[in-house]
């Protein structure tokens, strides 16, 4: 009873938030006495363009090009993210598990991590054959560091008694890895994946603006060059939706893998 009331309240607050944001947008574009603001499209213009079979600037949900841009971005973000997980989780686990290995790796990670992703773009373009791989590499890099660091912290935060109990019961390293380290670090790993996904979209959009022929970041930047305001906003909104869906997907997967948490916290006594 109480829970559903709360849910409702949250639901209404959320809609109030959305409505407020749109009103604010409309107001600042229409009524603020600042010229550069007045040039911006109001919400209605953007929606009209976005869902128009004959868009004024060539991009709407009815134009195949729109989906080409989306597919490019999704493909890049997904492959960078997958690579980051495939390499980052094992590296983080190794770092958390083995002190000697950690000493080597943390020096390298500590040195490279503070370099902002975009600073890699020129070098990446020169190193890699083709811009495609360079953009994916830059996207991969931030996602990778977020995954490694959170996985490492996850392993380190496992209660030492869990390892002691496993050792006293006679388990081999393989059992410890499978039954203690991975499940114990999973909550942190998934926090890392959420951050990694967000960071991936962030640097992907930036990378595409600088060096790409397709993709949402490129779409936004091209529309900027051609001063097509509604298309800029469409590109931004689409990026937002893509980011939201991917992070919701990770959350759902995490909840499925960590049912014990839901059950433990949901039910007391």
């Amino acid at each position, binding site marked *: 009873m109480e829970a559903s009331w709360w849910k409702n309240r949250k639901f209404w607050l959320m809609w109030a938030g959305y409505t407020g944001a749109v009103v604010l947008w409309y107001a600042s574009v229409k009524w603020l006495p600042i010229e550069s603001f007045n040039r911006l499209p109001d919400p209605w213009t953007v929606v009209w363009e976005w869902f128009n079979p004959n868009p004024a600037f060539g991009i709407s949900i009815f134009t195949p090009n729109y989906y080409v841009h989306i597919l490019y971005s999704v493909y890049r973000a997904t492959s960078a993210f997958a690579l980051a997980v495939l390499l980052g989780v094992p590296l983080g686990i190794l770092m958390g598990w083995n002190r000697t290995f950690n000493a080597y790796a943390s020096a390298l990670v500590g040195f490279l991590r503070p370099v902002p992703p975009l600073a890699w773009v020129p070098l990446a373009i020169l190193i890699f054959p083709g811009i495609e791989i360079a953009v994916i590499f830059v996207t991969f890099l931030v996602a990778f560091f977020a995954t490694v660091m959170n996985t490492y912290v996850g392993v380190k935060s496992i*209660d030492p*008694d*869990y390892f*002691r*109990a*496993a*050792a*006293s*019961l*006679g*388990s*081999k390293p393989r*059992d410890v890895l499978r*039954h*203690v380290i991975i*499940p*114990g670090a*999973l909550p942190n790993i998934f926090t890392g994946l959420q951050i990694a996904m967000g960071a991936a979209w962030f640097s992907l959009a930036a990378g595409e603006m600088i060096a790409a022929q397709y993709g949402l970041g490129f779409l936004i930047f091209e529309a900027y060059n051609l001063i097509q305001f509604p298309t800029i906003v469409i590109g931004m909104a689409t990026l937002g939706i893509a980011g939201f869906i991917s992070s919701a997907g990770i959350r759902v997967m995490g909840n499925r893998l*960590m049912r*014990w*948490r839901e*059950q*433990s*916290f949901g*039910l007391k*006594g």
Partner: protein
Amino acid sequence: MNAATLSGELVVSGLRKWYHRRDQAPVHVLEDCSFRIEPGKLTVVMGTSGCGKSTLAYILSGYIKPDEGQVQMDGQPVQGPGPDRIMVFQETALWPWMTVTENIVFGPLARKSVSRKEVTQKALELLRKFGLSEFKDKYPGQLSGGMKRRAELAQALINSPKVMVLDEPFRGLDVMTRELMQEYYIKLFEETRLTTVFITSELEEAIFLADRILIMGNAPSRIVSSLEVDLPRPRTFDVLASERYLEIKKEALEVLFSESMQQAD
């Protein structure tokens, strides 16, 4: 169990232990700590908080090494942790991501000592005995404190250890649950007669459970006194009203009192 199968004698001699921490003076925890744990007996180790009880328990179980001295089990020096000496930790060490049954069968399966079917069978028997049948597929987070402690006892017992080391297992439970667990636990011990080192800081709990009480001094600590508890077994809470119980309690209080006076000096 008959006397012939009794084993699990621990002989502890001359333990000394310091903890070293960066940028801090080393903490001297144990100093010339020697005693013997008799097989088939329940030995309670008592001491104030911070005197080194957990450290001693970790050394007995083989998780940490003393700086000096040795622990021998049935004549063999203890080198590291192993399923013949199982420790039940001060805080719960059930893995929260495994169900109660998965937690219990973990040890035997990890050692591949028996088939999954056989272990599961045994686990279900233990769960029934421990009144946890309904909770076999729950996660530890869904159990109450007392149920967790029982599940941990089952998790330890399924490995048929020779010695159990219990580090303040009932700490943090409310008074009612605690008394129920004590009653429960003493039945279990009297049934199995498994060599047990039971650590506590509660005198009444100590006397109620023990065959012998070892009292630790203040850190750097050693065993300063040993009391035989010759109350009859099987025991019920009725012994708490007996003359002998009060005598033992008086004796113990005197030792504890003089020990705390020494600290004040």
